[in-house]
């Protein structure tokens, strides 16, 4: 990359105002962090929760509850919304709906929202097989090494990313990462990026891994790749680009053709639903390949899904904030921070 000259004589004060895109802030309450309304385009409003970035699953539950009420209002000019872990975004037509009117409507919902702790969420439990550092995953990482970036701190000589994830989190090695992935339950805050992809968050703050993404992102990732970026776990639903550190591969989670009954019976190409919980069990590579054949072609694969589960949010919040959990989470974070300080950045 050539050197880019820095613009000279920029008046910091003026430009701060010039590039300020905060439209309104609702102060924090006992129930929630502050809410920041941001300009995100000429027909886009972003609603962000908290000035400080945090990974706190009840934020997502709140955002989804507000989103549901917003949908019900059927406000003229609103096109669609994209709720995520700590933000929602409304796409609207500003020639039909004034952005301040939209902010008022959302504020009204927020002001009258019952406590999130009162929610009991229907939450299915999905169990998926995973093959760690399988050959297909290695091939795609090798492609990146050969075509995009030869030397990087996050890829080892065996075309794996797990050593880096371990190093970045102050853990001993990839076995520690495997143990965490296999013993954790992940929560789905919503879908995005590419079709059917769900964003999964570890429900246990004591093993909350964090890892920066590829630099530059991969141009190619394979279907079913399981990876992590920041604190988030993701399964690539279709072949696509992407920047997450890869652990291995699981079976298909998206099927446009709706051939397999798991998709056909629900008339949806998506395997996951918002508020689902996910866990993994380890298998060898052949079993994953068997999954592709028997989901996409023979359509007789049986997914492991328990449909009946629920999350009592009050219980989750109480457990999460209990002194022992918080103490252990803080200890994990401290060790993590020490490791981050001495680990090379992407």
């Amino acid at each position, binding site marked *: 990359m050539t050197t880019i000259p820095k613009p000279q004589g920029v008046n910091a004060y003026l430009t701060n105002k010039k590039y300020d895109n905060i439209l309104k802030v609702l102060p924090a309450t006992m129930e929630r962090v502050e809410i920041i309304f941001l300009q995100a385009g000429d027909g886009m409003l972003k609603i962000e929760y908290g000035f400080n970035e945090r990974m706190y699953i009840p934020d997502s539950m709140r955002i989804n509850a507000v989103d549901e009420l917003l949908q019900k209002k059927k406000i003229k000019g609103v096109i669609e919304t994209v709720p995520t872990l700590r933000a929602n975004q409304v796409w609207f037509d500003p020639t039909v709906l004034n952005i301040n009117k939209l902010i008022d409507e959302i504020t009204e919902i927020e002001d009258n929202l019952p406590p999130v702790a009162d929610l009991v969420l229907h939450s299915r439990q999905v169990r998926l097989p995973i093959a760690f550092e399988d050959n297909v995953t290695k091939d795609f990482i090798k492609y990146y090494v050969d075509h995009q970036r030869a030397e990087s701190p996050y890829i080892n000589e065996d075309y794996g990313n797990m050593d880096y994830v371990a190093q970045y989190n102050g853990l001993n090695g990839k076995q520690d990462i495997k143990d965490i992935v296999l013993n954790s339950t992940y929560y789905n805050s919503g879908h*995005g990026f590419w079709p*059917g992809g769900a964003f999964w968050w570890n429900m246990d703050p004591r093993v909350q891994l964090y890892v920066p993404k590829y630099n530059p992102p991969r141009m190619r990732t394979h279907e079913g790749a399981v990876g992590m970026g920041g604190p988030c776990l993701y399964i690539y639903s279709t072949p696509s680009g992407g920047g997450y550190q890869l652990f291995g591969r699981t079976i298909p989670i998206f099927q446009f053709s709706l051939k397999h009954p798991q998709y056909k019976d629900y008339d949806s190409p998506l395997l996951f639903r918002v508020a689902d919980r996910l866990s993994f069990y380890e298998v060898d590579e052949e079993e994953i390949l068997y999954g592709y054949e028997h989901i996409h072609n023979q359509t007789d694969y049986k997914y492991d899904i328990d449909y009946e589960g629920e999350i009592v949010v009050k219980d989750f919040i109480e457990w999460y904030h209990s002194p022992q959990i918080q103490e252990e989470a803080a200890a994990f974070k401290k060790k993590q921070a020490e490791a981050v300080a001495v680990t090379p950045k992407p």
Partner: protein
Amino acid sequence: MLKILKGGIQSVVEDWPGRTGRLRDGMALSGAMDNVACQLGQLLVGNPITEGGIEVTAGGFQAEFGEDALIAITGADLGCTINKQEVPLWKSFKVKKGDVIKFKMYKDVGFRAYINVAGGIDVPKYLGSKSTCLFGAYGGLEGRVLKTDDVLKFGKPYGALEEGKTVKQSAMPKYTNYWELKAINGPNSSPNYVTPEGMEWLFTNVFDVGDQANRAGIYLGGVDEEWFFAARDVGHPSNVIEHPYNVRGGLNVAASTPILFPSDGPSLGGYICVLSVIQAEIWMMGQLIPGRDKIKFIQTTQEEANEERLKYYKWMSEDSIE
């Protein structure tokens, strides 16, 4: 119907506004890369502006008509001929069964052309749209690019077939190699993500359109990490906790790479988005020639964007046709 002889570089069925309402499922909006050329094209052949046509990227597409039809070619001049005779762009005309349409290659300006047919292209709508999403492999014709021996049927014309309709000179979009795209702040333009110098640079720099510029992302060189990002306590200052992307038209900064998100841009991700091309001008992204054109972002306001949007709505109407 139309029998495809050669698919060319990349030819797909697209409509407008694409597949809305499914961003929350991770399904890209898709839709025509140059919605202005697509929509004006629909008007020329008497279709509603939401109908679908064939988006021909770069050139090389060849096909034979299996029936008489009224068509119009809009967008970039890719050297379109019918039976080896050059045809006018932005004008409706009749073709006969057996006529062969061919596209050569892109020239000095513009990168995508649209074949618009009275009645539209008769592919099944998937989730409300005929648009192809190549990454998801759905929509359009079997979710893929057109190739040799494909057959596309036409829909029933919406009205009388009128030859010789043209786009008024005043309504013709202007193509260039140097594009100025009006853009608005957000969502991550504030000084806690990007330094004021960084934002100033975004709105003054002339960007080279990268060789990698497709329906999902247009790569625009690199940023200088030394001074572009505000310091934040994260693994990389371009990283944020996964948030919604402002598609279509958002400028994403993935590590040190700025990527403009057009039709198939992702709905969500973990890199910052620093500005947003206004909706009235996102069509320009469809005519950028990879590795050749240059673009500059011009900062604008919500008020100005609204005015431009109202002009755009009027532009995509019979007012532009004579």
